[in-house]
């Protein structure tokens, strides 16, 4: 039975359990709901959950475990020389799986006779062509061992499918029976159902933690395997970035960090004044009507996907800067440059700076402003000498968050900043960032044994640590500030 059908059957059983348990609960009190411990539907839900949960757990566990178990037993059939080497046996297993899949298709279409033309099984020599006929292309001819392994794979998979169906249905039926037996008027169905639901809620809220664990684990393990191949100090302090898929690569982090920070700096020079002055105007000067129109309009910028900004950088901003500023001033003739990417990221960050600062400025107590006006200060003097100093920690937090976004931004830099890893002071030169290089190293074919792929994980780890640090710092600063006025 396919997984979907099996799921359907289990669901039907669950619905039946709901109806039966509810009926049984009502029957146990002869229809007098008042003497039941819980509402009738609680008994129903208890029955449904008793069927669903154990069956789903068994099914999911089986789906995960079966391929691992089968692969282990199949790989014992491969030649000892292949088994010894992890990479080779991985490749061999992929072959085995492809052959098995191809055989399944070919046999089901009747193209290959299971017993072979002479009754002694399939001939490995002709198998490659036969499988190519059903759309399964193989890299080489099928060896005898591979064929044997593939046959074993098929029988185990077929057996596993039957066993999985039986096990799942058995658990579901046992759950059904238990639920029905438990159901009587004194059974605390509601408490049990609520306990289960609470457990599910806790499980869901743990997904966030699991994600973090996943991020850290996946990056840490690959980063460690990278540093096993490539020296740590060369990565951290190297001045050259020249990956080469034929070997002899140099992975110096410094040029990438330089490009990243330069672009971030330019973007902050754009975003901070524009965002801050917008926020000040909106919070202190604008009439409610202006505010209601302008604030959502500025936030539209935050809703536009970054790839749109990337195309804007590539098609409009880059050529404009090149033709009107860089070339007349003799500063270079590259369309993609630090300036292009920095300006566009700056624009992207305006709404972040402005809406965060807006909230913070609004949180400054009115009494402080009134005090300042009472002393005869003008509005701008009040803002500059009272409101802004009071809001400063919060604004610093907002700026740090915007900075961390600029560092982690990917699409705008990959479309607007170029790919040349170099250290240069000229902002009209193409430079590159950590994110661009992560995309560059991981797009296309990835080989998890080569340093050219693994370096991306080290870069990702660096990026993660930097942005996380900035965010924690920002949260700390903001929280510290909030305590002052609450």
């Amino acid at each position: 039975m396919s997984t979907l059908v099996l799921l359907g059957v289990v669901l039907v059983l669950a619905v039946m359990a709901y109806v039966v348990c509810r009926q049984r609960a009502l029957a146990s009190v002869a229809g007098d709901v008042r003497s039941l411990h819980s509402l009738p539907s609680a008994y129903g839900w208890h029955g449904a959950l008793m069927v669903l949960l154990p069956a789903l757990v068994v099914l999911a566990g089986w789906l995960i475990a079966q391929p691992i178990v089968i692969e282990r037993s199949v790989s014992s059939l491969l030649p000892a020389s292949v088994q010894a080497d992890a990479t080779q046996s991985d490749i061999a297993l992929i072959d085995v799986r492809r052959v098995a899949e191809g055989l399944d298709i070919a046999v089901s279409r009747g193209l290959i006779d299971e017993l072979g033309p002479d009754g002694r099984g399939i001939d490995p020599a002709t198998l490659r062509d036969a499988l190519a006929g059903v759309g399964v292309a193989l890299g080489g001819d099928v060896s005898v061992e591979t064929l044997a392994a593939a046959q074993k794979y098929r029988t185990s998979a077929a057996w596993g499918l039957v066993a999985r169906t039986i096990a799942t249905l058995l658990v579901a039926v046992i759950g059904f029976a238990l639920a029905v037996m438990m159901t009587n008027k004194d059974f605390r169905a509601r408490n049990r159902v609520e306990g289960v639901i609470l457990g599910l809620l806790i499980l869901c809220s743990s997904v966030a933690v699991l994600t973090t664990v996943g991020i850290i684990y996946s990056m840490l393990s690959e980063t460690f395997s990278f540093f096993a191949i490539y020296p740590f100090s060369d990565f951290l302090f190297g001045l050259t970035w020249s990956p080469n898929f034929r070997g002899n690569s140099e992975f110096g982090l410094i040029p990438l960090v330089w490009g990243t920070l330069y672009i971030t700096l330019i973007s902050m020079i754009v975003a901070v004044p524009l965002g801050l002055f917008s926020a000040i105007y909106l919070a202190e000067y604008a009439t409610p009507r202006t505010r209601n129109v302008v604030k959502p309009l500025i936030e539209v910028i935050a809703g536009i996907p970054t790839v749109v900004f990337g195309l804007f950088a590539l098609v409009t901003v880059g050529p404009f800067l090149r033709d009107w500023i860089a070339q007349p001033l003799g500063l270079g003739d590259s369309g993609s440059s630090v300036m292009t990417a920095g300006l566009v990221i700056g624009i992207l960050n305006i709404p972040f700076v402005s809406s965060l600062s807006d909230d913070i400025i609004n949180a400054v107590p009115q009494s402080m402003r009134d005090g300042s006006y009472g002393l005869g200060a003008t509005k701008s003097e009040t803002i500059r000498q009272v409101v802004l100093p009071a809001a400063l920690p919060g604004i610093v937090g907002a700026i740090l968050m915007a900075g961390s976004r600029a560092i982690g931004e990917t699409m705008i830099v990959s479309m607007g900043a170029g790919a040349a890893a170099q250290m240069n002071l000229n902002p009209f030169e193409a430079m590159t960032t950590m994110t661009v290089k992560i995309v560059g190293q991981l797009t296309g074919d990835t080989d998890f044994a080569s340093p050219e792929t693994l370096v991306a994980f080290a870069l990702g780890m660096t990026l993660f640590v930097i942005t996380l640090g900035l965010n924690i710092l920002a949260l700390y600063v903001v929280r510290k500030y909030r305590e002052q006025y609450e």
Partner: protein
Amino acid sequence: MTDLPADMSTGRAGSILVPSRLMTRRNATEWRFRMYGVCAIAVSLSVLAIMLWTIFADGISSFRQTSVTFPVLLDAETLDPDGNRDRAEMTGVTTIGYGKVIDRAFLSLLTSEGIAVEGLSDKDARGILSKEAAGQLRARVLADPAIVGQTINMTLWTNARIDGYYKGRVTMETAVRDGNVSPEQLQLADLLQERGILSMPFNWEFLTGPDASDQRPEAAGLGISIIGSIYMMIIVALLCVPIGVAASIYLEEFAPKNRWTDLIEVNISNLAAVPSIVYGILGLAVFINFAELPQSSSLVGALVLTLMTLPTIIIATRASIRAVPPSIRDAALGVGASKMQTVMHHVLPLAMPGILTGAILGLATALGETAPLLLIGMVAFVDNFPAVAASGVLEPATALPVQVYGWAQRSDPAFIERSSGAIIVLLFFLVIMNAVAIILRRRFERRW
């Protein structure tokens, strides 16, 4: 107020009614400071306007495609040598065979219309048609083999340069220098246009067709990426909303104050700020390398986007659960509801509009996200439509924003038009999602 004496306007020094020099300066500073704010807003909004305008100006033309309509005699001997009108046999005829049929029909059209351009060879004349034209004809014939042997009116694309001529990318001057198009070809196109043979109809294929190779931008369509995006949004919604709501309910209503829940809280606020590309690395390492799910499938894309969107949705949901006043909970508990019943029967329904709004906005962010999808291989060239069935989520697909990026990376300027057109489609979906969110908020959100 009494009227001021006349001599007050000339003023005495030191009067409060006469601005002193210091006061004038302070007022000027005040005005300047205010203007800084106005300028900042004006600059931000005008850059936004310029950006949207350039993209619309570049992209809107991709919805129209220059095409030539002329009668084509479907020669039975070339297209169906066996004469059985059997679809399976006819798939044996490749586009080369169809190309010959088109060549003959097009050249006889030129003769019958009396169109001749000096210095234009037959091969170049035929060259104004798209390389995809033979494929278009083949698809039409295979869809209905009975038409073989008849003469039908076909609307076929011209190549991207001729298309660009009518969209302003190519002019007679640039054509002289361009190896792919000659001024004679453009003259031929103009003659065809005068006779109403060449026109620019609405380009449905742009919305429904698959991507095309570098040499034929005129055939590139968004079909697969729209399907991929829709698949991903469905899975993200199915995973993200229940998990996000469940997590928020627990954290907001049940969680005791202890280390574990503190850890979860800090985690969620930090995850919301992790750069999206890091999620791509996670997806590559965990879903593709470890769990061995198929690369560039919409399932993996959706899982990555789910993890990325989850913190945003949790934060929005918690805010709307918190906005339900405690009196509602107290009343429910007071009449004997259990804690779970209070939440499920009262708090959750009241918080629903806010939750849905947050969920839709979260989905909108996920729809526009590109970087993590690049890492899990969705940037690969895909020209087979994924199946409509559930297994389709395991097949290679691409997504709208990734298609924008993919086209922007290609060298032919015609792809920039396509890329901008794809952005228009993407923004169209985003505007709809945001509009729904705003309507939900306006109509159903309660203020206590």
